[in-house]
């Protein structure tokens, strides 16, 4: 089975074809910050972008704010109205392997036990077209997290830059249906396949930032109560929400209501375990001190999530390192977790 390919100049036409059936989302800076937005119909300059979007693609499934339902009080009491169900189909074009893997990690939480209808209805109606990275950044460390910058099995179609063209790999059946609809695609030659293989390897080798995750779960378990270590690790953190809100695998949310003149809405919105009042109860706050919150973030991603779902909740996208106002670096913290011989308790 050979793969297809498409000329870079024909990408706009390809997206146009798909736009007839899907709402196509592509990386854009139109809003003032790099994020996935509805494709404007002509711009493909994002194909030359160096860096990933600032706002991760999780925002297309789990937006910063969404209405869970509306309620209204009339003489019979409260009437609750669900938002119209999200049946329209989406196509996300240009998602990077790190973010695609992050979607798979998020799925585990939203599907687990109680199924989250808002996230899942969007997720089930979306196809992902991945774009491999050929110039990994200094902040990227995806290769340490079990993925590769130019390869992905978490998307429906995977594009690899082989010069003037993209090689297209059909990863899932949904992906096959996509290429069936598209025109302007050619068959890839053996040379194309070889070039793609080379590009993938080069890209992989370009990732310089490395993190040794061997035994990290147990290292963190043993160091959980090392207050001195965590205080030092947390010293320069300012407890904002950037690393968590913009992390593609973070999913903490808050629920709030608003009522204006008898009509109201229940909202879900992004929240962060880094905020000082996140766990506050009337009489006490188990994570009052900043070092506890920093410890929670690190341990949740590298110890607790793996305990439940067998995967580290981090894909090495590097946003947290790039965007942190004080350059707090999780890879530096993890490298310096002390190795303890006695197990706690």
């Amino acid at each position, binding site marked *: 089975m050979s793969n297809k390919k498409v000329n870079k100049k024909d990408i706009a036409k390809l997206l146009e074809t798909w736009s007839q059936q899907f709402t196509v989302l592509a990386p854009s800076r139109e*809003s*003032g*910050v790099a*994020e996935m937005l509805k494709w404007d119909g002509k711009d493909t300059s994002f194909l030359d972008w*160096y*860096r990933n979007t*600032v*706002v991760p693609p999780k925002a297309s499934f789990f937006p*910063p*704010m969404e209405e869970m339902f509306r309620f209204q009080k009339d003489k019979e009491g409260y009437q609750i109205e669900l938002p119209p169900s999200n049946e329209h189909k989406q196509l996300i074009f240009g998602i990077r392997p790190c973010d695609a893997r992050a979607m798979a990690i998020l799925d585990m939480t939203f599907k687990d036990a109680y199924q989250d209808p808002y996230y899942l209805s969007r997720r089930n109606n979306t196809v992902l077209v991945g774009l491999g990275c050929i*110039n990994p*950044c*200094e*902040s990227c460390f995806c290769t340490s997290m079990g993925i590769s910058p130019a390869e992905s099995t978490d998307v429906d179609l995977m594009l690899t830059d082989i010069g003037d063209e993209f090689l297209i790999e059909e990863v899932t059946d949904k992906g096959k249906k996509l290429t069936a609809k598209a025109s302007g695609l050619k068959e890839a030659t053996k040379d194309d396949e070889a070039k793609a293989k080379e590009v993938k390897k080069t890209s992989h080798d370009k990732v310089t930032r490395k993190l040794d995750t061997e035994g990290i779960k147990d290292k963190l378990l043993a160091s959980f109560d090392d207050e001195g270590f965590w205080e030092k690790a947390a*010293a*320069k953190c*300012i*407890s*904002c*929400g*950037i690393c968590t*809100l*913009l992390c593609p695998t973070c999913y903490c949310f*808050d629920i*709030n209501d*608003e009522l204006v003149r008898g009509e109201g809405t229940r*909202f879900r*919105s*992004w*929240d*962060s375990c880094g*905020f000082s*009042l996140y766990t506050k109860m009337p009489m006490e706050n188990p994570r009052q001190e*900043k070092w506890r919150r920093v410890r929670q973030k690190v341990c949740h991603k590298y110890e607790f999530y793996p305990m439940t779902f067998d995967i580290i909740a981090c894909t090495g996208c590097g946003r947290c*390192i*790039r*965007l942190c*106002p*004080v*350059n*707090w*670096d999780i*890879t*530096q913290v993890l490298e310096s977790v002390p190795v303890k011989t006695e197990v706690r308790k």
Partner: protein
Amino acid sequence: MEQKLRQEARALLEQNKVDWIIGFEPGSLKFTATPLITKDKNDAERLVINPFIVNNLANFLTEIKGRVGIVAKGCDSRSIVSLIQDNKVVREDVVILGVPCPGIIDLSKVEQLVGKNRDELDDITREGDKVAIKVNGGKKEFPATEVLFDNCLACEFPTPQEYDLLLGEPRPPAPNLEASGQNIERLKGISSEERWAFWENEFSRCIRCYACRNVCPACFCQRCFVEETEPQWALPVPRWQDNLIFQIIRNIHVAGRCTDCGECERACPVRIPLRSLTREMYDIVDELFRFKTGMDKEARPLMTHYEQEEAEDFFR
């Protein structure tokens, strides 16, 4: 200067004159510096002074307990004085290691000028009033004013006003005061409907990360007004109206405490031009009350007292 700083920091810790040293060390990314907060005198070797020491370290003074030796640029030292005015910091508990600041380099401006990503650049150095960028084996030079942060272009007090040790020669104010306010001037020139539409658009992408608040030394409240539930001033939901209310009230709360260090705008991950609000407030405070933040440690904070001779025309 770095050598002097390292020696001094080490001595302060060795002689038990301070409990902590707060300064900068090289960051984990190229062309980045990161705060160094330490009690260990051996860490003094890591301290640096370079064109990337952007953070306002005064931010940490309201959190760290004990005596602190702190590296402060012009704007930072005024923030420290403002905290002293507010009784949040005791003057005798800080040793201010003042750094006369030539301006901090904005990497996004460099990237735009050179047309390359920061990862592709080999080196960036400040040479007098020029900045030299080494890339692709060659070297490009630009006037420093084209790559410094906007607020550095408007800097009236690059030399710390209050210090215990000055690490360098005092510097004159920045020459290009107008260049920093381009967005503000543009906003002043459009109608208020257009301005409202502009801010609605900008605040639509705010995600309420609170980096602007948490990076600001003037925001030192244990419980911020936006975290109150009774009454709820702004919903903790990132709607543009609530985001705008948060920022407006925050500006009012920090009026007279803001030194235009620019950290709020720089820290914002979604690039909201917050300085257009904070700098305007800074100028309004100067105009109405002839008050500049953090100049006199004996002075009372602006908003805590009222002089009879003050402007009253905003009372309606």
